[in-house]
């Protein structure tokens, strides 16, 4: 177990095409950190820089306080699980898992013990003599995880490990990875483009966009107080309602509709000239909860079984609300909705930053 620090880390190709723009990050002992962002945001590149598979163009990567910029992967005491498993096809599962230990001249009895322990943990102990080709995707990923576990590395790196699995298996493996972390207490850096994976697994999430760190915080903070428009729009399903608005006299104006802002938010609004208003679907209520009232027209309803997503016309904006499953108003009918001030978000529309 170890800590990982990134200090002003930069990655550029040919000195001009910069893909990682000076990222600072502190990952504590035993912490599960998830890098999340859309494809091309640089999350895998950043992980590969920690692994030593990509060179570092600027800044420092420290593992356990030691600068490792110029160390090859094998000297960094890390283990990595790849998206496409990267198992050795000609070796048995046992040999796949034992390979790293054999290279490190671990005694054979110790190898035997560690591989069997990992295999039992991952429930693959009955297939250790098989070759990877005889396995399903989920089983292969277990072997890849087993290969990482037996090494007992300082840091585990996961590069989109569940992307190649079907939805059901992905859910199962997600739970197992979380259990594994609780059991091993290991430092894990995990890359995914799936915000649900990020929310469910992480102690802390680092949201990346176009090579910039957008926010680095706990899943709760990321969800409840996103630091930027990008983060707000990326997390949650459906994501936060984000609509352009005007601010006048402590009120937010959505076309003809005027909503009273909490005093502190109204004050902070003054620091920007163009604004975007945000509210999460589950924070729009049909019952009077003391929130700002608004006259709304039902546009469309999407029953999901446990709940119903309802799109309302509110002022000149369309807002999605998460309603109970028994919502039965037809499109076109009108109702009152309530928007609590403490759940309102305002963003500077020009810079994309939250006004917090």
């Amino acid at each position, binding site marked *: 177990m170890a800590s990982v620090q990134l200090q002003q880390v930069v990655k550029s190709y040919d000195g001009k095409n910069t893909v990682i723009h000076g990222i600072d990050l502190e990952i504590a002992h035993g912490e599960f950190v998830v890098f999340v962002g859309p494809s091309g945001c640089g999350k895998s590149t950043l992980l590969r820089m920690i*692994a*030593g*598979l990509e060179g570092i163009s600027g800044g420092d990567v420290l593992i356990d306080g030691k600068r490792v910029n110029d160390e*090859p*992967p*094998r000297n960094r005491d*890390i*283990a*990595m699980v*790849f998206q*496409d*498993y*990267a*198992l*050795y*096809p*000609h*070796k048995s599962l046992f040999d796949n898992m034992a*390979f*790293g230990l054999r*290279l*490190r001249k671990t005694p054979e009895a110790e190898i035997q013990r560690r591989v069997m322990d990992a295999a039992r943990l991952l429930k693959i102990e009955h297939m250790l003599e098989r*070759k*990877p*080709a005889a396995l399903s995707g989920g089983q292969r990923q277990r072997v890849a995880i087993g*290969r990482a576990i037996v*090494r007992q590395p300082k840091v585990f790196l996961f590069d989109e490990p569940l992307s190649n699995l079907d939805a059901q298996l992905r859910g199962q493996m997600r739970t197992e990875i979380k259990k594994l972390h609780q059991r091993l207490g290991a430092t894990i850096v995990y890359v995914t483009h799936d915000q649900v994976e990020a929310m469910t697994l992480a102690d802390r999430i680092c949201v990346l966009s176009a090579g910039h760190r957008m926010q680095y915080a706990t899943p709760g903070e990321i969800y409840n107080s996103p630091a930027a428009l990008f983060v707000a729009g990326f997390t949650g399903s459906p994501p936060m309602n984000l609509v352009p608005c005007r601010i006048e006299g402590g009120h937010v104006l959505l076309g003809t509709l005027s909503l009273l802002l909490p005093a502190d938010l109204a004050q902070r609004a003054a620091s920007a000239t163009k604004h975007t208003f945000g509210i999460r679907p589950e924070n729009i209520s049909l019952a009077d909860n003391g929130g700002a009232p608004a006259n709304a027209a039902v546009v469309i309803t999407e029953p999901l079984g446990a709940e119903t997503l309802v799109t309302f016309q509110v002022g000149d904006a369309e807002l999605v609300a998460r309603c109970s499953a028994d919502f039965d108003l037809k499109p076109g009918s009108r109702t009152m909705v309530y928007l609590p001030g403490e759940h309102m978000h305002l963003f500077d529309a020009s810079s994309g930053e939250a006004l917090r």
Partner: protein
Amino acid sequence: MNAATAHGPPRPLLPDRMPPVGIFWLFVLPFAALTAVFGVWPIILSIQTSFTASATALKPNPTWVGLANYVSIFADPVFVASLWRTLLYTFLAVVSTITLALLYALLLHSALVGRGRTFFKLAIFLPVVTPDIAGYVVWRWLYDQSFGALNMALAALHLPTFGGLASTSTVLQAVLIAELWHHVGFYVVIFLANLALCDKGQMEAADIDGAGAWQKFWHVVLPQLRPALLVNSVYALIQYLKTFTVVAVMTKGGPNDATNFLSYYAYQLFDQGRYGEATAMASVLFAIVIVLAAALMRLQRTRPAG
């Protein structure tokens, strides 16, 4: 009414409902016929001739002599020596061809070569497309003991001169070097194609697992090169067992039979009208090629390729 409507829509080249097996035979038959006429038939004829008396071999009603030709060639010390020489030379040539081609391909594939890659690719492949006789004539000049460029260069560097084609102790090496020059590029191309298909992920996994360059080669690259190794070694085996042109151009089997390989010896007998014995030798060579190639393929196929 125009022509198109008069004749209906244009007919497809193949009937609409042609069964797949029909399409299979349509494509296969022309080549099967060519192979049968120009490949299999001469082999059968040759094997048939090896059971006839040389004097009557080419006549309509040849005299059958059973295994007499085979008995005769195996009693011929020149043939037995030639057989062993051919096997030895083939072994050396296959091993050095595969090793050199693999090393060259790995070098070309690595980042070490950089921008010179195209040049080095061209340099190794050019001899393959050079007419072999022309190439070997040049090599004969290079090795020449009186005015050859090789010995002049060695002398200029104050190094001992090379016996080349003139000495029984160096002629096999000399012939082998010329053959390597001519053939290695072909094998390099096959290896390069296979290297391009290798999984980068496995290399990275090995990096993380702690493998050094040699361990990565042995545990990751080499297993993935099995298809190219199989194709190349079978092809090289067949090619070197049949070594002929280089001998015909450079040594005529000499000096003192040192390069008198099976193909060349059989050809000499054929030239002397000893058709029965010549074709018996060709049949023995054919059997060796088939057995060794099959064994090699079996050996490599039994190890699962993942």
